[in-house]
């Protein structure tokens, strides 16, 4: 392969914007954000050869299949080990096919050597939702970060290179859904499980008999703004109806 087949974050390949990989890191990560592809957790118990250790991991499960009912995570979530790794140069991103570089994923770590890491695709496990929840989520990827992860992971498993903007076509709707659920839960407060379920139920409604569900509508970028407006109106109504 020649040239730049694998995308880097930012508009300047020679001077990438590593921060563009992440939607939130460290204490910017909020509980209201649904668990999503690319999320990095520390302190997750993983078992191999009968031995259980606590490791840092990254969720590899595709956004469309990470939940069975739209609210609760599947019983078994595919994750990759995350470990210390020196920061890759832009040229090194064009190789190292078995890794997803995570530069500055822990920018405030007390040990400078642990601020840059990588996810290792050939060191994977399956964990339960309880295992993930027992850990600490330290990073959430941005939409671009998720697309870059999928580009690298798909190539690792199949040797097919797909431009990241094509992944946007299949992840955009689910990423939008995660954003909407987060916004709903942040606005309403209270029990996270209940409010997540309420948000998903609202998204699964049809605004009228002839329209598709809101969840189906957000698969199409041209309808997302309207669904966001409607949700924000709904939240205002719910707040005004509160005793």
């Amino acid at each position, binding site marked *: 392969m020649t040239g730049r087949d694998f995308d880097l974050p930012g*508009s300047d390949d020679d001077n990438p914007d590593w*921060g563009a990989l992440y*939607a*939130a890191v460290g204490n*910017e990560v*909020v509980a209201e954000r649904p668990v999503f592809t690319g999320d990095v957790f520390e302190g997750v118990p993983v078992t191999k050869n009968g031995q259980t250790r606590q490791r840092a991991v990254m969720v590899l499960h595709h956004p*469309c*299949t990470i939940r069975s009912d739209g609210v609760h995570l599947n019983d078994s979530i595919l994750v990759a080990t995350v470990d210390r790794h020196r920061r890759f140069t832009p040229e090194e991103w064009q190789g190292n096919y078995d890794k997803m570089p995570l530069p500055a994923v822990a920018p405030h770590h007390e040990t400078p050597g642990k601020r840059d890491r990588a996810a290792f695709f050939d060191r994977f496990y399956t964990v339960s939702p309880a295992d993930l929840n027992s850990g600490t989520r330290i990073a959430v990827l*941005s*939409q671009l970060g998720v697309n870059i992860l999928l580009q690298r992971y798909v190539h690792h498993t199949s040797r*097919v290179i*797909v*431009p990241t*903007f*094509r*992944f*946007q*076509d*299949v992840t955009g*709707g689910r990423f*939008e859904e995660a*954003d909407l659920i987060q*916004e709903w839960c*942040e606005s309403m407060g209270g029990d996270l499980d209940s409010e997540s379920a309420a948000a998903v139920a609202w998204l699964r409604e049809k605004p009228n008999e002839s329209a598709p569900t809101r969840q*189906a509508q957000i*698969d199409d*970028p*041209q*309808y*997302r*703004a*309207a669904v*966001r*407006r409607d949700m*924000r109106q709904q939240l205002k109504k719910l707040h005004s109806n509160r005793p």
Partner: protein
Amino acid sequence: MDNNVDVAASPARTTPKEAGTGEGARELNESVGVLRSSVRILGQDTDDLHKKTFTTEWHERTREWAKRSVQELLEEVADLGFAWRDIARMMDVTVPAIRKWRQGERATGENRHRLAGLVASCHQVMDDYCVNEVASWFETPVLYQVPVTPIDLWAGQQPDLVLEHASGHSDPESILTAFDPEWREHYRSNDVDVVTGTDGHRSLRVKG
């Protein structure tokens, strides 16, 4: 000797009187050429002037919107239907920063001004160019099947291209070339289709 043969053999020695209608055609052609150059220069000057005037209008609108608080400005973009992640991108700040402002934390004067500029541009696009659903318009590719949207133009520090695109006076290819001269190469991908699977979710299918 046949005079016609002489004229055909040595046109350079032909006198104006002997050229017939050729002289009239040449003069007309020259006049039209001059007119065409003048119109082209006038067109370019008008383009430049229009860009100055719509930018001036945008600055005036921005000054007005900047009188509102950051929370009022954020509520305005939220009511228009923008995603917080896109607002953050266009503002060149993080999503957590936008969340803090929504919760009442103060933004710098520069960020307030930039947010006012975004709101101002939305209203200018709606008022002057009759764009409905402006947030959806911002998410719509400039050119079909090329994934560059007005959000990308704005996030790329080229708000003038957003207004130019809204005005309709430039063709989409020119807008894209001004944004990224190599866009044709970057987004060349005719070999993948987006399909909906039996589970209702989207998949990418490589064309065989």
